[in-house]
């Protein structure tokens, strides 16, 4: 990348010489940009592993027993879940794009605690290594599903304690990242960058940071209970010792429902950056979009019970949880309407980042609306624990957060790597991905509605067609992903040099060179207006 810097004399952060060389120059770096790039590389690698495992699950479901037995099937879907959730989508946007762009977007040179930031990256690596270890060392890989429900997770022979400890470390990393970001946003905004001038992406990172700090410790202590239960026989969730497994579910979902917003809030932030830029419009209702992020974060705290409607809860509790679940749809709706209103009468350029952003809006809306179906008590009794749930959360996680990561990747790729990718393959890849995605997951809605239970290894013949369509969809989706990432990897090596502002963006990251110089800004900018 060195020779293509062109007329500007300043060096990029890639060329900065530090105390260390080679791999250590990256691992020991406290530069938020380098940490962000490393996180991105790790995340996408784990995404590739997770997708491959998902493909194997789908393949097995066309002809159960042909590839492997039921126990292996359990282990594979558990590993798919743990990797996708704890190693890819929860850290996801904040650690990769947040690290890279948060300081730049508020006009700072780095995050508030650069060394703590590096420490979170090491913790992430350690957590990932421990989770990986639990798959390969003596004994069986985890087979409980990613939720580690007690009492099975306390009694199974698999390597639960190790996997859970890995997730505990990852949680610690997540807490410290959130803490770092919130402090950064409080302390390091450039002069004139008032609260209602910061880009919406930063607002969503702020809300996410709070959720990370408020929810993750609850998961941490719950996981400690699981470890203590397995190692010392502490029976907090074991009925034979007076414990209560339902309490595990409560504690687990107290974290894991807000975790959904850790995944989705920053995704909404990315969409709020992309839609105005490609519509040549200001974001419609900036304050509403910004504050609805906080609204989602706050209300999202009180809805965990909707994961447990069939677990055993009083009717009063169920009605209240159902009602609050409906409430959380309101701020989400506010955002959707504002994005659409932003595009109204805008001068829209249909580039690949916008295509991914629009598919986010479409797929997330389906995911959100089906969430209301299962958030109502009566349909939930019918649909709980079926493929309908699987389809719903894949629409939200992959169709939502995943699409936003792809959107962000195409939007910020020129800034992060200083290269332009080819537009045509990106669009073709997007189209194939979009078709494959809907075949893969929409057929699951139908399967689930007809009563196919989730996590089952085998099924009666009437579900075969649905499973076949879904599996074919998974192949199409994989082809789409191959084209998209092939195009991006090719651009890394042979792409044209990216200009500082290829899309006409107004936020601060587009006012500095691509890729950014080591210190981001020679002089800290003074902000006089809202930039997004």
């Amino acid at each position, binding site marked *: 990348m060195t020779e293509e810097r062109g007329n500007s004399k300043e060096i990029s952060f890639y060329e900065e010489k530090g105390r260390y060389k080679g791999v250590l120059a990256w691992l020991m770096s406290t530069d938020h940009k380098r940490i962000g790039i490393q996180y991105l590389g790790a995340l996408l690698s784990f995404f590739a592993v997770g997708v491959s495992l998902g493909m194997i699950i789908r393949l097995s479901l066309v002809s159960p027993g042909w590839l492997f037995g039921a126990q292996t099937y359990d282990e594979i879907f558990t590993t798919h879940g743990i990797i996708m959730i704890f190693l890819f989508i929860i850290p996801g946007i904040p650690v990769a794009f947040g690290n890279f762009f948060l300081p730049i977007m508020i006009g700072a040179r780095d995050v508030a605690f650069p060394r*703590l930031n590096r420490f979170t990256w090491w913790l992430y690596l350690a957590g990932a290594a421990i989770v990986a270890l639990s798959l390969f060392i003596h004994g069986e890989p985890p087979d409980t599903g990613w939720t580690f429900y007690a009492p099975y997770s306390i009694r199974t022979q698999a390597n639960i304690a190790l996997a859970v400890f890995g997730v505990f470390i990852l949680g610690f990393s997540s807490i410290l990242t959130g803490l770092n970001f*919130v402090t950064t946003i409080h302390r390091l905004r450039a*002069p004139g960058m008032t609260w209602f001038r910061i880009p919406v992406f930063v607002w969503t990172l702020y809300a996410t940071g709070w959720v990370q700090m*408020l929810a*993750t410790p609850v998961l941490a*202590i719950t996981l400690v*209970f699981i470890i203590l239960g397995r190692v010392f026989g502490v*029976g907090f969730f074991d009925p034979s010792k007076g414990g209560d497994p339902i309490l595990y579910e409560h504690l687990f979902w107290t974290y894991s429902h807000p975790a959904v917003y850790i995944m989705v809030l920053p995704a909404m932030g990315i969409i709020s950056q992309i839609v105005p830029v490609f519509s040549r419009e200001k974001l419609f209702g900036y304050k509403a979009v910004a504050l609805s992020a906080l609204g989602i974060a706050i209300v999202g705290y009180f809805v965990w019970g909707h994961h447990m409607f069939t677990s055993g809860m009083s009717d009063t509790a169920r009605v209240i949880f159902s009602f609050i679940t409906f409430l959380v749809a309101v701020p989400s709706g506010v955002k959707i309407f504002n994005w659409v209103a932003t595009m109204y009468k805008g001068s829209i350029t249909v580039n690949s980042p916008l295509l991914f952003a629009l598919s986010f809006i479409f797929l997330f809306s389906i995911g959100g609306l089906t969430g209301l179906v299962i958030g109502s008590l009566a349909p939930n009794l019918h649909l709980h624990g079926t493929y309908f749930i699987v389809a719903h959360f894949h629409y939200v996680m992959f169709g939502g957060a995943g699409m936003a990561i792809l959107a962000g990747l195409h939007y910020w790729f020129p800034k992060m790597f200083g290269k332009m990718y080819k537009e045509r393959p990106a669009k073709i890849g997007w189209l194939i991905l979009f078709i494959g995605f809907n075949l893969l997951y929409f057929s699951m809605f139908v399967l689930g509605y007809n009563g196919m239970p989730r996590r089952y290894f085998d099924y009666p013949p009437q579900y075969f067609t649905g499973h076949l369509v879904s599996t074919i969809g998974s192949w199409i989706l994989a082809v789409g992903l191959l084209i998209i990432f092939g195009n991006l990897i090719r651009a890394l090596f042979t792409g044209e040099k990216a200009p500082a502002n290829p899309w006409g963006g107004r936020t601060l990251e587009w006012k500095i060179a691509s890729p950014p110089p080591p210190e981001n800004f020679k002089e800290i900018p003074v902000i006089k207006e809202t930039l997004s």
Partner: protein
Amino acid sequence: MKKSMEKNPYAKYEQHIDYTGKKIGMWFFLFTELLFFGGMFLLYSVYRYRYPDDFHTAAMGENIVIGSINTAVLLTSSLSIALSISAIEKGNRRLSVLLQILTILFGLVFLVNKYFEWTEKIFRGIYPNSPVLLNQGKGQTLFFSLYYVMTGIHGLHVLIGTIVISFMVVFTLKGVITRENFSKLENTGLYWHFVDIVWIYLFPLFYLIT
């Protein structure tokens, strides 16, 4: 780093140390710790509500003398760490180091007391999943499981605290912590007070509820 000028609007961004920022970060961290312990207190309240009589009976078996001594020791250690911060603020490095070492000693006394308490119980056959305990019923099993887990994790925090304070002693001696820049010591003090406060809640819940 350029020398920051008077009335420089960027002064906040040019200086190396953001004192307020560090303090904010520490308070956030303590907040997450509070939620971490919150999970345990939640479990305690649920099971105490479910087995009130068993909890009552089980708590009689606790040694209130050792518990009270430990409470006094930990409260005094909070005083000594607070005084060590005042000492460094006044520029008295020697006194500050002495007070920090005193705090470490208090922490160790607390842990030694805990050690005797635990071994005495384990000797009587009271530990999670022990045959003795399982015979005494579910409520008592849960009480002592909670006792070991909560005081254990709290003890771990005390241990980490003493290690961190030992680092602070070294930093103070080396001149990293000075009259002008003592936020490391101050944040350590905040952490130590937090550990102390957790004990203030643990003490009545396990020793005084009989």
